[in-house]
């Protein structure tokens, strides 16, 4: 389906060119950049030349032949989409001859097209219909008895959209969108000539095919051949609200297209600077959870977790919450309570939760789920560069020559950015993948990494140090950059360290499992291949040396001069929509918004003045410390907004024990999540569709979240926190999240110029947005590092204590899959389960054979921490000795297995390395059965139970 009420200039903008060209179109002089098509030049002037195969998202194709024009001095009727303007060209877009030709083409189209427009799902939003009108077609003289495709069967296999080949005009926009935009190449034209038809893969139907359901084809379709089922069901949208996706850290902007109060579809917004009009299956389609019957809409309380829930009024729930926290603090002390902010919520909501804790609870016991994902990024990058964030914007990848992906799986985890990366790779950039697993970027259709370094989980620092060893010992370091931008003495110390023979690729190969020659070649390529950019994910951070790895990455980038311009940089791929934002907002126990330590008197005074209370100068507890303290009896109450720590945090037994030891656990969430099994108060949350606010994505881009519909639960999350604060006696009077942002801006220098007004005006801002850079900062450290000189930190490889042995001979590592998101709370409640209905354990054929396992067998997965069962997937994607699983399904409880080892600097859990054993099994483990029973009991709701 086409974009409604968005202008489509027909062809892409001309590649950057300083030169302009003037020409005459229909008598007017038009001046456009050199390389612009006639079609685009005309559209910029307001003349819409008829078109069907052209769209400004795709390369000009020239197949529909509606856009023919006349050019003085040129024979024939060139297609305006594929003909670039030239100086002095004289173009006519309308003439009797052109009108006749266009009608002739349209007559052919309509001779093989259904005629029941009035009952078509795309009625009113169909380019074919529009163009038939535009060219003035009145009759089809061929009649309707000729050969046609009107009997073709519909493909309804995809849960979100239908394909009706009878309505297809074979413009190839879907095929081209899949190739050019998404980069999956799942669609093709089958056959040739009149028999040409669009098919998925080898004519397999969309669902079984290679299609990843990103929706680009549906968006590209000019008719209703490809159309969202929701449009068919509900009708064409009549308005659209631009908002920001609440899934991953890419931060795609979408048009929420509405019909009345009903959301019809989410369509990626062309102007979105993070996604440039692209989307993935989650953001585009998986929003049905917002109306899922599992959603809890009324507050509930209970005295103890073995009781059923009791629905109460908001007033009662809020008053009860406040009195419980006051009671517990009175009994156990100020520091006996705390809270957890959510990377899923808005900046404003996150800011309010940490404010509630610092101002209302009077301590710094606030932490966020970023603890378990990107806290080492914060530590590592602020230590080396001075800023706790990635250095680039996403556009930067278009200027990269060598891309190194470490411990990230962008095609699954950050698919929209992965598509842009793949576009650059198809243009010739080269790729280095450092990952224990053969992810799709290593080798998949049209992508072939130059080097894959399949390291043993847990050896990141050794591998990066060996790369640095090559750079330094082979004289590939960028000395000019280092002398200008870094501290030379620190560099020299570091260089001497990495140059030690025992750090060489050869010396560490046995340890890392990476062949030395490959590692050397990769290092040389990165150092000498032009603009080198590093993208990394949780495979870097979620280790006992997560912070060291981040610093090793920063060292490598500085040593090769790859910081401070487009195309380079160190780029964490953030897992959740607002990880960056929640960290920025002061969600960590040791720092206020803008990463300022609580012990800093000036900052504290600023906040004390603004908030009218004295604030605790001592750092608070991190999540694992809170749980420890709870088991020890010193921590008694926890306010959790939008996070499911029981499922997402490591060593589930430890989490469960901690939660069980508390007197009051408040969960604010959409669903009765796993953590809520241990909760005493449940405050129903609102979805991103139901509130205003902002998210900050992985490129530090602050984007508006706009309310599309009223909260089903009655309140936006920020309102609920405000009610709690007011009940605690705090004088909060926010009437709109923009006022919260104003407070953030006033208290946070890097946000100084951020306001809703500015965001409305510019679409988005990348912090720092200061007086010096009022429009934000796409690329950081351009003229110098934020901390002054870039700091080389000697990061020594310290092996994890989690080791394989006779009992646990395999290493488990974990990750994500495209169709599911995080703990699956949302995506499991959508049709995305069609692609991934359960977590599977990937195991190498060799290891499987040794254990007598066949593909699909139930297996028991055991570690020192616990045991679970799931089904095996035998694949050589993983190396022998390594097994892999996802953690999207609570039934699996992969975190029963993971241990509480963690990053030395930040306590970010070591999710990525667990020694395990795998053996045949015939069903759920004892724990799984017990857990299922407990969960069922804990989820009882009295009003239902009474019926």
């Amino acid at each position, binding site marked *: 389906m086409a974009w409604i009420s968005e202008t489509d200039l027909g062809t892409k903008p001309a590649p950057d060119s300083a030169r302009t060209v003037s020409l005459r179109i229909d008598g007017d002089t038009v001046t456009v950049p050199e390389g612009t098509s006639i079609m685009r030049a005309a559209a910029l002037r307001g003349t819409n030349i008829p078109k069907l195969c052209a769209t400004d998202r795709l390369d000009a194709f020239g197949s529909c032949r509606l856009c023919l024009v006349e050019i003085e001095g040129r024979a024939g009727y060139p297609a305006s989409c594929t003909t670039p303007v030239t100086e002095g060209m004289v173009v006519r877009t309308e003439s009797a001859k052109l009108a006749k030709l266009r009608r002739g083409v349209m007559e052919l189209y309509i001779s093989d097209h259904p005629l029941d427009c009035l009952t078509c799902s795309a009625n009113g939003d169909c380019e074919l219909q529009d163009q038939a009108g535009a060219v003035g077609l009145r009759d089809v003289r061929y009649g309707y008895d000729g050969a046609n495709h009107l009997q073709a069967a519909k493909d309804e296999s995809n849960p979100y959209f239908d394909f009706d080949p009878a309505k297809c005009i074979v413009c190839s926009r879907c095929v081209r969108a899949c190739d050019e935009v998404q980069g*999956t*190449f*799942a*669609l*093709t*034209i*089958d*056959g*040739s000539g009149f028999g040409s038809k669009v*098919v*998925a*893969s*080898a*004519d*397999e139907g969309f669902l079984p*095919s*290679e299609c990843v359901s990103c929706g680009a084809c549906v968006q590209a379709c000019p008719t209703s051949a490809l159309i969202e089922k929701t449009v068919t069901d509900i009708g064409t949208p009549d308005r659209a609200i631009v908002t920001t996706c609440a899934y991953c850290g890419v931060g795609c902007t979408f048009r929420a297209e509405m019909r009345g109060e009903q959301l019809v579809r989410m369509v990626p917004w062309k102007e979105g600077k993070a996604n440039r009009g692209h989307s993935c299956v989650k953001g585009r389609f998986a929003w049905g959870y917002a109306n899922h019957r599992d959603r809890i809409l009324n507050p509930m309380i209970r005295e103890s977790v073995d009781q059923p829930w009791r629905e109460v009024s908001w007033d009662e729930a809020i008053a009860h919450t406040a009195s419980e926290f006051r009671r517990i603090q009175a009994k156990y002390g100020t520091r006996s309570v705390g809270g957890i902010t959510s990377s899923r919520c808005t900046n404003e909501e996150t800011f309010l939760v940490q404010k509630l804790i610092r101002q209302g609870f009077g301590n710094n016991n606030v932490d966020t789920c970023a603890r378990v994902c990107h806290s080492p990024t914060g530590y590592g990058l602020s230590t080396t560069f001075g800023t706790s964030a990635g250095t680039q914007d996403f556009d930067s990848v278009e200027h990269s020559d060598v891309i190194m992906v470490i411990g990230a799986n962008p095609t699954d985890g950050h698919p929209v950015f992965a598509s842009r990366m793949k576009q650059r790779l198809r243009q010739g950039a080269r790729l280095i993948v450092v990952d224990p697993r053969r992810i799709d970027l290593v*080798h*998949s*259709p*049209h*992508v*072939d990494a130059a080097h894959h370094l399949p390291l043993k989980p847990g050896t990141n620092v050794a591998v990066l140090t060996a790369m640095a060893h090559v750079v330094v010992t082979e004289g590939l370091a960028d000395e000019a950059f280092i002398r200008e931008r870094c501290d030379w003495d620190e560099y020299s110390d570091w260089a001497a360290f990495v140059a030690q023979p025992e750090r060489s690729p050869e010396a560490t190969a046995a340890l890392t499992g990476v062949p030395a020659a490959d590692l050397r070649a990769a290092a040389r390529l990165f150092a000498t291949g032009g603009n080198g950019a590093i993208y990394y994910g949780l495979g870097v951070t979620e280790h006992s040396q997560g912070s060291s790895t981040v610093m090793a990455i920063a060292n490598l980038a500085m040593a090769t001069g790859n910081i401070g311009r487009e195309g380079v940089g160190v780029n964490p791929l953030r897992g959740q929509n607002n990880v960056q934002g929640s960290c920025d907002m002061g969600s960590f126990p040791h720092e206020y918004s803008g990463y300022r330590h609580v012990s800093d008197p000036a900052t504290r005074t600023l906040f004390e003045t603004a908030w009218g209370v004295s604030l605790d100068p001592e750092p608070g507890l991190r999540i694992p410390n809170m749980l420890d303290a709870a088991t020890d009896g010193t921590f008694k109450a926890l306010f959790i907004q939008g996070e499911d720590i029981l499922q997402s945090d490591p060593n589930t037994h430890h989490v469960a024990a901690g939660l069980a030891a508390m007197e009051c656990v408040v969960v604010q969430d959409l669903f009765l999540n796993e953590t809520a099994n241990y909760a005493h108060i449940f405050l129903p949350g609102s979805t991103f569709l139901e509130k205003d606010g902002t998210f900050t994505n992985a490129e530090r881009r602050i984007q508006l979240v706009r309310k599309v519909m009223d909260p089903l639960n009655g309140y936006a999350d920020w309102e609920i926190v405000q009610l709690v604060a007011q009940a605690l006696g705090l004088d909060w009077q926010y009437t709109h999240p923009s006022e919260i942002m104003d407070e953030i801006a006033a208290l946070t220098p890097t946000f100084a110029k951020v306001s809703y007004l500015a965001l409305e005006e510019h679409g988005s801002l990348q912090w720092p947005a200061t007086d010096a850079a009022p429009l934000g900062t796409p690329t950081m450290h351009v003229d110098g590092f934020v901390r002054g000189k870039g700091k080389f930190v000697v990061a020594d490889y310290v092996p994890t204590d989690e080791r394989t042995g006779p009992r646990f001979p395999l290493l488990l590592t974990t990750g994500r899959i495209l169709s599911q998101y995080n703990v699956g709370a949302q995506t499991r409640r959508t049709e995305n389960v069609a692609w991934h209905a359960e977590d599977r354990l990937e195991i190498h054929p060799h290891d499987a054979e040794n254990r007598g396992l066949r593909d699909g067998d139930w297996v028991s997965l055991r570690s020192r921490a616990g045991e679970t069962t799931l089904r095996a997937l035998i694949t050589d994607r993983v190396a022998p000795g390594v097994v892999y699983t996802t953690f999207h399904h609570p039934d699996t409880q992969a975190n029963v297995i993971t241990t509480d080892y963690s990053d030395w600097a930040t306590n970010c859990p070591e999710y990525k390395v667990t020694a395990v054993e795998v053996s045949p099994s015939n069903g759920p483990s004892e724990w799984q059965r017990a857990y299922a029973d407990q969960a069922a009991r804990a989820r009882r709701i009295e009003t239902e139970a009474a019926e």
Partner: protein
Amino acid sequence: MTPNETAPPDTAYADAATRLLRGRPATRDALLPLLHALQDEFGYIADAMIPVVAAALNLSRADVHGVVTFYHDFRRAPAGAHLVRLCRAESCQARGAATIERIATQRLGVTMGATSADGRVTVEPVYCLGLCATGPNALVDGRPVSRLDAAKLERIAAEVLA
């Protein structure tokens, strides 16, 4: 698709693909040569070859399927034991190809473009063999035959129906 009881397993296709690619970089431009080689060896492009070829050249299945179905040469089912390709382009038409086509299909007991029920012979059209001064022309199991007439057709029929 004619079921082929002796259809080799996919691993045979994968092995063949590897062998047939030898000496040639596994880039996309090897696709047509590889498909030709597979068809030469197995007689047709089996469905099961599509993912094998896609994997060998790092293409999507859609890429391979699109190419296989685009070109008339690639057959999706085995041909008959004998293959008679009759030219029906203009120069042969000018020399009586239509009559020859009628006689040939009648004599061989098969319609144009089809394989006889007993699998003995497939008759297919071809558009020009570059023998345009000496038509009507045919390729009989790869052997060119010009100036086709009833007598020559009879000899061909005797050969392929034997």
